[in-house]
């Protein structure tokens, strides 16, 4: 099952109810809706639009990509959630699904693609490989998680995750987008003027990428046995 990351800038754990227009309660709003009066805020409308038209970047890296492709087929039908338009250009995409093993040879290209995507942009790490290197974690040529270089919003564990899990991850991302604020202390990352939109692209070195991680986006969690 998917879980939302606590590493990137997220709204507080228990978000306060989303403010629609005015200070009326959700029940009152529902009541009005039933009578054909729609009260909303620009924030809500804006998030509603973005939530339901997430265009993923069309690229796959390994076996997980097969599941992602299956998610786009009629049987699982990612179109139900408005995310069926896989864009072949990063300029037109706002979600990067890192589906598969990121080798060290590929990592700079993945970061470069993410940099080329316009804000607001999101990243889903799909599968054990994209999260941590998966079965290849101990190897010399596989990146131990794409979150070393770019901020990941949703992690979907599995090897590979089933299409349902990917859909669940997408829904979690939609929930996250819905609660994004345009103003105030919990402003969404892409609206903060000092938040970076591009991330340093690592370089190839004799045995590893240089630098091996971007400390601005990744900090090592202590291992459970060390706690």
């Amino acid at each position, binding site marked *: 099952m998917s879980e939302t990351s606590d590493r990137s800038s997220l709204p507080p754990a228990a978000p306060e109810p989303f403010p629609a227009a005015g200070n009326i309660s959700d029940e009152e709003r529902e009541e009005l809706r039933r009578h054909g009066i729609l009260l909303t805020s620009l924030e809500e409308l804006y998030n509603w639009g973005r939530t339901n038209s997430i265009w993923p970047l069309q690229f796959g890296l390994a076996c997980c990509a097969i599941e992602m492709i299956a998610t786009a087929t009629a049987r699982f039908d990612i179109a139900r959630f408005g995310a069926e338009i896989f864009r072949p250009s990063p300029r037109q995409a706002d979600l990067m699904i890192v589906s598969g093993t990121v080798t060290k*040879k590929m990592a700079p290209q993945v970061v470069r693609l993410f940099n080329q995507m316009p804000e607001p942009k999101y990243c889903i790490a799909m599968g054990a490989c994209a999260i941590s290197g998966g079965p290849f974690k101990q190897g010399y040529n596989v990146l131990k998680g794409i979150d070393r270089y770019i901020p990941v919003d949703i992690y979907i564990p599995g090897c590979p995750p089933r299409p349902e899990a990917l859909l669940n991850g997408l829904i979690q991302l939609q929930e996250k987008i819905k609660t994004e604020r345009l103003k105030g202390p919990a402003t969404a990352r892409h609206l903060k003027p000092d938040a970076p939109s591009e991330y340093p692209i690592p370089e190839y070195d004799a*045995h*590893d990428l240089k630098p091996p991680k971007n400390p601005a986006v990744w*900090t*090592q969690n*202590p291992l459970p046995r060390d706690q």
Partner: protein
Amino acid sequence: MSSTAELLDHLRARFPDATLELVENPGPAAQHGLRLDHTSARLIATYLREDPAWQLDYCSNVSGVDWIDREETEKVTTTVTAEDGSTAEKVEKVTRTIPGYFEVVYHLYSMARKTSEPVILRLRTANRTDDTVVPSLTPVWRSCEFQEREVYDLYGVSFTDHPDLRRILMWDEFKDHPMRKDYVEPDDYEYEPTPHATVLERAAKHYPPASPAEEGSQS
């Protein structure tokens, strides 16, 4: 065995100058190979592709094998005559070292003849250190190109006359050839320990106790 042996006889008759050798596969698959020498390899390969009797038009697989130096122990029995005239048998173990080499194995099929058993060609380098060269068969079978690059990348075998001999899986700046049997993983790549004794031991060496400043940032 028969078909490979037949092929060997046929080639020996046709190419008397070539040094050919039957490399037996003792496993249950019994897919015996044919070892070619460097000078005649391309000639014989072209012949096998063109000749109507073989028409080996499809090279399905090229793989590298690393044969490290190995020791072979043989039991040698000698008869020793003692001073009193009686004889006794003495068994001695003789160990000799067979120097290592790299081997490149080609699996060939014929689409035209719809063969299901591969014909296997093998090429060997002179040693594992400074003379790791074999002739490329890419000019004969185009499908060898990427796979020979892979062998070059992971084993460090150079192919003469390969049109584009570059690394293919690892990046160009990468040092060493990681599939070699004596490859030691360097300690300067990022590495995460798992709770297994040997891994932790290595991790202790890999990550010497952090300086206080670093420790602060990790917790």
